């Protein structure tokens, strides 16, 4: 059933988990680079500081878009954890990102403008794969509802290994990791300054950062779905997947948009599609 409790739990706990994950991420990244790195709770200090800064804007409408971004990210994440329809979650998620893009467009800065365009390219790069992942889950469990997928007790990963690999690939885009951190980055890639977030500052940037935490928790939840039949394996899988993402992040430089688009469409999309094709064939030819 749709669980409001889970949704509320997500709304309350996700920023803490997301912030902590970001802290661990930075710490491990620093260690990989032979540095000590910031304190574990540094991301919380960063966001706390952003809310202490005075707000400056280019246009007041930026507020509307960034706030909507946060609201819809929270809403789509809450819908996911409540057990709602996976496709609806994905569409709500796209809607949320559209608001981030519009926020960047609303200021007339060349840097945020390029960031917005690149963010759109990222959206078209990852979205097909995420939809295919949802479709794959439906083909295995016969349901689009997250609560039914969770409760199916099936080792989904065994049916969808290709989809999972493809998903990991687009996860790199979603987590804003190199080589796919086209639109904005946590690293010192500065040729487009901060891309999408260039003209956000102070509390507004803080809200964007919190939304990003929510988003990451939602994405990790998505990984969980593949392993839902065994929570222990699922948690290990999430940790391994995230470590892998950090490793990739630290071993690549920022790629071009063509590289991002082609690799996520051709490699990830094909892995997903071939996987689904095999499933489709099996279910059509060998009735269960």
């Amino acid at each position, binding site marked *: 059933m*749709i669980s409001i409790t889970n949704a509320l739990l997500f709304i309350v706990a996700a920023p803490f988990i997301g912030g902590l994950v970001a802290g661990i991420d930075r710490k491990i990244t620093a260690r990989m680079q032979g540095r000590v790195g910031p304190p574990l709770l540094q991301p919380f200090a960063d966001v706390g500081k952003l809310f202490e800064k*005075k*707000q*400056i*804007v*280019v*246009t*007041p*409408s930026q*507020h*509307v878009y960034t*706030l*909507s971004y946060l*609201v*819809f990210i929270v*809403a789509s994440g809450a*819908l996911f954890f409540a057990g*709602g*329809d996976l*496709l*609806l979650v994905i*569409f*709500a998620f*796209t*809607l949320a990102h*559209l608001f981030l*893009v*519009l926020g*960047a*467009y*609303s*200021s*007339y*800065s*060349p*840097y*945020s*403008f390029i960031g*917005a*365009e690149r963010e*759109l*390219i990222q*959206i*078209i790069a990852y*979205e*097909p794969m995420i*939809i*295919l992942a949802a*479709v794959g889950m*439906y*083909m295995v469990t016969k349901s689009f509802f997250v609560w039914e997928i969770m409760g199916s007790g099936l080792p989904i990963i065994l049916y969808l290994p290709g989809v999972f690999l493809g998903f990991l690939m687009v996860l790199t885009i979603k987590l804003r990791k190199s080589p796919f951190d086209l639109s904005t980055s946590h690293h010192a890639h500065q040729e487009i*300054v901060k891309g999408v977030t*260039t*003209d956000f500052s102070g509390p507004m940037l803080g809200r964007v950062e919190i939304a990003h935490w929510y988003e990451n928790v939602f994405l990790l939840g998505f990984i969980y779905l593949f392993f839902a039949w065994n929570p222990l394996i699922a948690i290990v899988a999430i940790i391994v997947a995230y470590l892998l993402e950090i490793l990739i992040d630290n071993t690549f430089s920022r790629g071009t948009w*063509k590289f991002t688009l082609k690799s996520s469409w051709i490699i990830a*999309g094909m892995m997903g*599609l071939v996987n*689904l*094709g095999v499933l*489709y064939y099996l279910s059509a030819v060998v009735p269960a």
Partner: protein
Amino acid sequence: MINNDKKPDFHPFEGESLITLPFLILFPAAIALILLLVPGDSWRRLVVQAGALIIGIASFYLLFITPGAGQEFFPVTVEWVTTLMFIAEMIIAVFLIYLGIKHRKYLAIFLVVAQAALLLFFESTGSHGAHVPDLFIDQLSLIMALIIGIIGSLICVYALGYMATFHQQHPDVKDRRRTFFFLVFIFLSSMFGLVFSNYLPWVFFFWELTTLCSFLLIGYSGTGEAINNSFLALNMNLLGGIAFAGALIYLAIISPGGNLLAISTLIQSGHAVALVPAVLIAFAGITKSALMPFSAWLVGAMVAPTPVSALLHSSTMVKAGVYIIVRLSPVMTGTMEGLIIALVGGFTFLLASAIAISQSNAKKVLAYSTIANLGLIVACAGVGTYKLVWAAIMLIIFHAIAKSLLFLCVGTVEHRIGSRDIEDMTGLIVRMPRIGVMMLVGIAGMFLAPFGMLISKWAAIEAFIDAPFGLLFVAILAFGGSITVFFWSKWMGKIISVCPVAELVENRISREKWIVLSLLTAMTVFVCLAFPVISSHLVEPFVLSVYGQTARLSQDNIIIMAMMLFLLMIMPFSLLWFRKEKNIVPPYMAGRPATPDLHFLGSMGVQRQVGLANYYLEDVFGERRLFMAGTALCFGLILLMGTLTAGVAL
């Protein structure tokens, strides 16, 4: 999705549509004749407005008198009607030949002659008479009638103001507004005829009328480009018309009594008999709805004045094509031919969406988006499971409203800023706030989450998974759907970017334009709110009566989407809270000091102004490349279909 086999309830008003149906066909024609005679501007205004109002009310009235489910037939016993139509068709053929000779378009003459010959042959078989020609109405006809009657007549009203400005701004174009409005109303009349006719030769007559009207309207301005594009449209539609005529002859030959010449009996007569004519007519539908090998005519049609484009793209013409395919989809369900038609639609959806990315001309983007969505509708109808037909009809409804709104907005903007290029729409939200917001609503209606088009796409994804060869279509939808996000979002971005040099240019837009645009905007939001009702009262009964089962979205999802829509509508109000923001700084310019209108000192002391242009990704999504690929692919598929059908027919 759950199945519903609720029995329809009895409807008290049955029979009254006996008058309304012929009224809706004849009344616009009468208005058209009056408009041809009425000389002055103010009289024309009055007639058009009154006519549009009556047509709108009459089609709305249909909503109350249409039976809850199933079809209702109205035999027309007046015998000379069919003869009259035949004579009219011959006159049209002579007229087209005359125009063809005048403009030296010999291909068109050849096609007209071929079609007329087929028609003469059909008449000579003497299949008329056994079946009394009849009109009919069911939920699908009703939906189409509502779209034609309400959106079509709104566009007519809008055209009044538009054409006045058009002729002011283009003094070189001869003012033939009488003919223009005559054609527009004839167009509405023939569309009504098309959706109400059960008798195929009648459908064919109205089909040809829409071809003729669109041909003349596209060529309205009389420039070389307009004439060429109008003949392109004519040729492609005539090709479809020839296939349609072929279907009539086939039916006349296999059932000399003419029993199969009615859509209702044709659908029930099974694959063996009905498949060949259904495929031929579906081919005609593909040409009319401008799917891939024939998409060029719709793109070319944008040379016409914008209300014509709005009419062609939203409520008439192309919708006639998808209407007939949806109508015949039970015949094609589960057949190889149906699958091929669906594939043509699917590839058209994917490639036309991709081409739209590379376009900066707003009308061209809209044109490709129309082609893409029609492709999607045909993909749904071609595969034709009950869930997909549900999605197809939903797409028809939502697309008609949002697309007409967008075209009319673009037309208005074009007249105010003198350009239809998206790059010139920068900061529209500041320069034309109300139009800007309406455009945003229209664009959101085309692809965003709680709005109708997305709901239908979503339903289509779910339905395709369970359909034969569905995975292919799921992939097409997954990729095509996200491509759609790209070109709409960057357009939205252009509109909302708050550019520094913004001058309010929204004044001097006539009141009737405002009324039409506001109504369409309200309708875009309203159909989104009311879609469960539209589904349960209009779409589901039709799907149920044809397929015995129907699809609908689950209750939970409807509630969640209503909440999303609510959130989406209250978010802009947060601007009231943030409006007090005092610390406004200029956008980041890498530290270059810039003036408020964003001039900055470039290298060598040259003053430059910031100019931002969208990505068009020409080398990946370029029109020429993808258009070639799509044409070749879809042409191949259609040839394959033709071969298969010929195999069946022989």
